[in-house]
């Protein structure tokens, strides 16, 4: 005979199982998804740390507009310049944030923009140089009010 306790445990398990199954699948980037996105950009090339300076505030009140600047050490000459800067994140719905393409006419490899961050996470910037090498920098960001999650009226 099933005791009341067993029944409740079984029922709880059933409800729990149903809950898991009925939760809509929410696309969320993971650190692994970010690595995949990075691999798509760099191919198999090694990514070294250095040369890139990623500037993000360490503590953010509002994840809806976070100022991000990236500067790369480079003379920006036709022979030696930064071709592209890519920014990635770990925990937004999508791992890509922005890709910008520069050239010798840029003068300096310095850009800034405003991004959304859905959670406390690590942001990574990768620079692609004209010699085919890739350089990166990462920054940890604490977000208190997340973007992307609010409902519309």
């Amino acid at each position, binding site marked *: 005979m099933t005791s009341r306790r067993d029944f409740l445990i079984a029922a709880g398990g059933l409800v729990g199982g149903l809950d898991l199954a009925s939760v809509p699948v929410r696309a969320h980037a993971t650190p692994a998804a970010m690595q995949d996105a990075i691999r798509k950009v760099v191919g198999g090339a090694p990514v070294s740390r250095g040369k890139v300076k990623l500037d993000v505030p360490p503590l953010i009140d509002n994840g809806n507009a976070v100022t991000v600047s990236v500067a790369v050490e480079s003379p920006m000459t036709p022979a030696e310049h930064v071709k592209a800067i890519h920014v990635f994140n770990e925990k937004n719905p999508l791992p*890509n*944030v922005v890709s910008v393409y520069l050239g010798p006419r840029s003068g300096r490899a310095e850009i800034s923009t405003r*991004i959304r961050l859905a959670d406390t996470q690590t942001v990574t910037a990768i620079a692609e140089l004209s010699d085919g090498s890739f350089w990166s920098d990462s920054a940890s960001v604490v977000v208190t009010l997340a973007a992307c999650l609010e409902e519309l009226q």
Partner: protein
Amino acid sequence: MASPAIVNVPATARRGEIIAIKAMVGHAMETGFRRTQLGEPVPRNIISQFVCTYNGAEIFRAELHPAIAANPLFTFTTVATESGTIAFRWTGDNGYSMAASATITVV
């Protein structure tokens, strides 16, 4: 719904000087991940590309994803080579297209 674009380019510059350019455009950058209170998904509507040209030659290009904040702002630099026009174009979902331009005098 198209809001105006705001661009900031120095009016004059010395030849060879590195100038800073700022460009912003009014756009909600709807991510496609939000839902209404009734649970209906709000379709994605973002600007996906921004291109800046200097007398017709591309000097800066950006590919935007939904993680770019509303009213996308970019600041970047270029070398002042000659007098002329610096043109900006944003394109995106639902046939969105917005243009702006500024003139620069290089002495």
